[in-house]
């Protein structure tokens, strides 16, 4: 396994320690609950926003903590939902009179941990609501599955509710906004290579040198289908078509377009993807109002990308444009 890792068991805590050392004035690391929080949280005049999920998706979500976005992130081990207890303690630490919003990607483990923790916290009179994010179109939603997965689109929900919370909105209003953003957000991703979880020390799955996985999950879950390697433009066309037709996005729509790298793909390639996606949307009469090219929700060192579209309206666009200060930065 070729990684910067010491003992794989310390992968997450050492990363969090590094993050806190790099942001001593703004972030606080609470090792007991594996928690990253704003140094100035909780604030009595503001709803606290918490996102939890497995680790391995950085910058989601620990590096999205800061003014205008999350008040805390409560990560589990790599690809594992956090223990119920940690979620519960995080809610208690961040509790404010205005309440707490939990953002949870729709996975069985995360749902259960957050459900249980919410119950426990409510028993202590913390006002909590939980919003599930499920933007991944690669999984068919049906009663036979646990529903769509939450993937890179969670960024937009975090950003919008983070901005609304900063503006002083109350919990129900923030919840409404989060649900609305989720309802107009769609994503599909694909893997060029597998990722290597540090505790496993080997690639999570075998992907031959000439095959790719369309619709892969951000935990390396197999996707829709495995196909032969294709040129960039063909990959983009397939992803985009799945995303566009799902909502569906239509001619005249104004969208945010995110090209998200899965961890092992350089940003040069992401712009090659962006180029095609932008042009294809233009051909469909869809205008890109805001764009995001980079890493937002990764899958460790997986090479690959996802494409997310959000249908914009004035409210969403204005929330996305609000300032935010988080750990991923250039200066």
């Amino acid at each position, binding site marked *: 396994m070729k990684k910067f890792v010491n003992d794989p068991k310390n992968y997450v805590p050492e990363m969090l320690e590094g993050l806190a050392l790099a942001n001593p004035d703004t972030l606080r690391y609470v090792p007991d609950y594996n928690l990253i929080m704003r140094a100035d949280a909780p604030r009595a005049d503001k709803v606290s926003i918490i996102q939890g999920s497995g680790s391995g998706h950085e910058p989601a979500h620990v590096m999205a903590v800061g003014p205008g976005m999350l008040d805390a992130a409560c990560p589990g081990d790599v*690809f594992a*939902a956090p223990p119920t*207890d940690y979620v519960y303690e995080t809610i208690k630490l961040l509790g404010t009179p205005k309440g707490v919003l939990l953002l949870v990607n729709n*996975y069985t*483990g995360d749902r259960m941990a957050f459900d249980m923790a919410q119950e426990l916290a409510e028993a202590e009179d913390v006002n909590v609501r939980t919003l599930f994010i499920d933007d991944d179109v690669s999984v068919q939603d049906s009663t036979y599955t646990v529903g769509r997965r939450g993937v890179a689109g969670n960024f937009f929900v975090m950003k919008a509710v983070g901005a609304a919370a900063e503006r002083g909105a109350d919990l129900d209003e923030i919840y409404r906004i989060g649900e609305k953003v989720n309802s107009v957000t769609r994503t599909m991703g694909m893997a060029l290579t597998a990722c290597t979880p540090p505790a*496993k020390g080997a690639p999570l799955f075998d992907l031959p040198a000439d095959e790719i996985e369309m619709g892969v999950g951000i935990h390396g879950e197999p996707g829709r289908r495995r196909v032969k390697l294709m040129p960039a433009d063909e990959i983009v066309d397939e992803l985009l078509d799945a995303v566009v037709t799902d909502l569906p996005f239509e001619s005249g729509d104004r969208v945010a377009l995110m090209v998200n790298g899965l961890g092992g793909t350089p940003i040069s390639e992401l712009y090659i993807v962006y180029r095609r996606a932008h042009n294809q949307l233009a051909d469909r009469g869809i205008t890109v109002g805001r764009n995001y090219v980079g890493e937002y929700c990764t899958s460790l060192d997986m090479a690959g990308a996802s494409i997310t579209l959000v249908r914009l309206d004035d409210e969403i666009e204005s929330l996305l444009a609000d300032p935010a200060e988080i750990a991923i930065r250039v200066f």
Partner: protein
Amino acid sequence: MTSPSSANLEFVVRTIAQTAVDNERAFGELDAVVGDGDFGYSLARGFEIVLADWDSFDRTEASGLLQKIALTISKRVGGTSGPLWGTAFLRASAAVKGKTELTGEDAVAMLRGAAEGIKKRGNSDVGDKTLLDALVPMTDAIAERLAADPATPAPEVAKVAAGAARAAADATTSMQARRGRASYTGERSVGSPDAGAVAVAVMAERVAQTWPGSASS
């Protein structure tokens, strides 16, 4: 059957814990086929604490011991397994609340409680290709055997349980996952056994093989 004494319960729980720790890698590999590969890691992190803290647990009462283990698991185990296995131990604890001597019926009640807890927590049932598909048939086999011959010796019951769990776990291979991460893969989940079900079988086999005084131990 001689009643499963508190010592027997301790033996079973410790064996489960040790099996989880010893099979961290193997269970992870199973989960990697159509899941995300962390099942072994998650279980091992919880059960290694159970083993480390064992001597500090109050073991005078079965229910209390099981509750303590449930708490350790919810504290330290993440993923889907944390809530599921935590709930399972909590419900097993509830099933024998206040009891000092445990009978074969109590063993069945604990296992049924665990399965019901998992079903509720996981919104799942037998047939969804989860650990329930080993746990429930195993429990049924134990209950059946005890109904036929209430005096079946404990090591014999353990063997029946192991055989049933293994057969049931193997049978998950042909099933399509409808719960958990594996369900995203639809038909592609067919062809490999469920990691959780196999874990139950491996634990049951280890219990049967190492039962104190058992032939094959």
